[in-house]
């Protein structure tokens, strides 16, 4: 009955619609959560691609980031998703590949341009199959108002103690809110605070791997300590930071009311445009002078093809182009702060972006701790980390309790953590 109904209504509905024009050339639709990149795609990237591939048209159709997962998911289930899909990293995309919704592109020639660690974010656990071309990573650190620092005679802090000394100085002066940070948008607390400063405690990849192997626990000192530092931050955050949303924090900083902004490198392009003062950046401070520094250099955005696309050849051609050095340079310079993961060498023009890029020279890179494998079960570790990081900033959960809850949640389904 279901099909009969559909057929008849379909006929009627088609009449209503009239004929839809049949495209001459292949058009690929790109799904993305980066709605602010619309202009970059329309004005820079797509023209560049279409120039060399006149028979393929690209249509960039982003969805607001909050709805992206839900909408993409629904469209994939319904079979209406675009040909090209922007991939979140690690477990954000792996299930889509498992369901066949993302195509296997292991043999794509362009992938040779990327180092293994970059491809890891969009490969199966054993690394045998890859399903997205790495596009960019984002580096975490702190952006500061250089004019404010000069005014108060402050230097970029290298250690935690120096960091708090700087914060104290700004607080004492009173002109600026020392830290632009709020807990209303919980992900801000997780990405810009916990996984930003955390790697210095758990030694980046070493700690992350230990968790995956079941050798470390969230109740261990190195995972609780970042929370303890975050508690100390609350003295320097704006009053009523509990209701301060992410965009509030941005505005506080770019309007010159706050001095230091715990940041991701994606802010660079927006800040460069909006802030009327000079800015600088420093990596998360280490515990003692001379310690190795670790940065969250998160493989954040990749791009793959819909497993059910009608134009697999064209899609592969496009992905090859995305994997090319040409794209890497265009993209990174159009969007300073999204760092290409390509081996290709090119100049970065934006000075702030250069500063962030330079962190890589001195510090060890690691990805966000919850992003691979550990968020595969229920409760979702990354969700929990959002909530608990915000709770710690709100002082409604103590650092120890937060670690305990993360650990309990993880151990409830993740076998290596169960003994």
């Amino acid at each position, binding site marked *: 009955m279901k099909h009969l109904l559909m057929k008849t*209504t379909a006929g009627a509905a088609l009449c209503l619609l009239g004929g839809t024009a049949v495209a001459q050339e292949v058009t690929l639709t790109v799904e993305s959560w980066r709605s602010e990149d619309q202009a970059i795609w329309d004005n820079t990237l797509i023209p560049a691609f279409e120039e060399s591939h006149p028979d393929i048209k690209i249509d960039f159709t982003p969805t607001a980031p909050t709805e992206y997962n839900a909408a993409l998911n629904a469209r994939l289930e319904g079979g209406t998703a675009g040909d090209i899909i922007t991939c979140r990293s690690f*477990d*954000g995309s792996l299930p889509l590949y498992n369901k066949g919704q993302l195509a296997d592109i292991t043999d794509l020639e362009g992938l040779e341009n990327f180092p293994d660690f970059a491809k890891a974010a969009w490969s199966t656990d054993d690394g045998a199959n890859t399903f997205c071309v790495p596009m960019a990573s984002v580096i975490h650190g702190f952006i500061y108002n250089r004019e404010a620092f000069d005014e108060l005679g402050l230097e970029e802090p290298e250690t935690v103690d120096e960091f708090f000394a700087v914060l104290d100085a700004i607080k004492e002066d009173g002109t600026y809110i020392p830290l632009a940070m709020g807990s209303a948008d919980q992900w801000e607390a997780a990405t810009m605070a916990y996984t930003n400063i955390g790697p210095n405690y758990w030694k980046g990849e070493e700690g992350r791997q230990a968790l995956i192997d079941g050798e470390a626990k969230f109740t261990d000192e190195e995972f609780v300590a970042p929370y303890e530092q975050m508690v100390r931050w609350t003295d320097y955050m704006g009053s*009523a930071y509990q209701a301060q949303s992410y965009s509030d924090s941005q505005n506080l900083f770019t309007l010159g009311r706050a001095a230091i902004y715990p940041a991701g490198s994606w802010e660079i392009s927006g800040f460069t445009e909006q802030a009327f003062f000079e800015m600088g950046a420093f990596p998360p401070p280490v515990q003692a002078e001379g310690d190795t520094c670790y940065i969250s250099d998160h493989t954040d955005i990749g791009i793959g093809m819909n497993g059910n696309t009608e134009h697999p050849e064209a899609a592969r051609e496009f992905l090859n182009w995305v994997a090319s050095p040409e794209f890497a340079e265009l993209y990174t310079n159009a969007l300073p702060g999204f760092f290409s993961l390509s081996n290709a060498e090119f100049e970065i023009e934006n000075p702030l972006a250069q500063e962030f890029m330079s962190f890589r020279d001195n510090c060890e890179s690691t990805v966000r701790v919850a992003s691979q494998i550990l968020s595969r079960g*229920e409760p979702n570790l990354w969700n929990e980390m959002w909530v608990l990081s915000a709770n710690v900033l709100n002082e409604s959960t103590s650092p120890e309790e937060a670690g305990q809850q993360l650990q309990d949640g993880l151990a409830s389904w993740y076998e290596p953590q169960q003994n």
Partner: protein
Amino acid sequence: MTDATTQMADRRPTRRRRRRAGTAHIVVFLAPALLIYTIFSIYPLVESLRLSLFDGLDDGSAVWTGLGNYARLLFDSNWSVRFWNALWNNLILFFIHMVVQNPLGLLLAALLSLAPRFGGAYRTLIFVPTLLSVVIVGFVWELILSPLWGVAEGMLSAVGLGFLYAPWLGLEDSALTAVSLISVWQYVGIPMMLIYAALLSIPDELLDAARVDGLSGWWIFWKVKLPLILPTLGIVAILTYIGNFTSAFDLIYSIQGVLGPPDYSTDIMGTLMFRTFFGQQTQIGDIYMGATVASMMFFVILVGVTIYLVGVQRRLTRYEM
């Protein structure tokens, strides 16, 4: 006269024999609505609810689990904590609407029914927020209550109450109340209109009679009008209850996001269902558990409506007016 009549009679169209239409017209009247409603509303809903009896495998296929998902939702602490929390928050939300929105709507309606000058203007303007998209409502209230913008704080300070300000939307104790009050602000127009209309339908004679019986304004309201509009208040209550599950989601989603922060204090059935069903960030949606949450939501609504129909509505006498 007689001539004319005969003439008319002659020109009368010959009587057509026609069988009465039977039931064909009933079908014609009902079919389009039934068809669209069934295909695009009932069928998808049933289809979704059916999913709650299955579980998904990694490769995307589904396997029958019977009531397994329900057992998980109610007894597996990973799920049950969130579930009961969301249900409880829904009940609080409902409670706040019942004690704030509906009495406020009643008050405004009662005042409007006194037919003050510009009554029509007040009525129209107070209804305006109801027309707004939650995108606008969420956005503007977030700004107003935001510590950064400082509108709320500034206004409180202006009347010497600055110390009362707190970042309500960000505090566990007050976030749900704050969101509820925003919702009250937006939707108070609906109970106001319904109650106002009910008050208008009370015949003047009855009120005159009460006045003759020596009742003053307040007592007339309390003793005569209120009992007569009880059925309407009943409808308002049940609409509030249903809306609390179906439409409150949009507001919370747009103000607080899908996790119901801080610490799930504004997490309701709608947000729980949404993020379970569709996923968010690194969480991939689980349509089977999502459908389970949705089904539970449906049952909860059904229970409420049944209680209303059996327990409350029967006792509310409707008076012919």
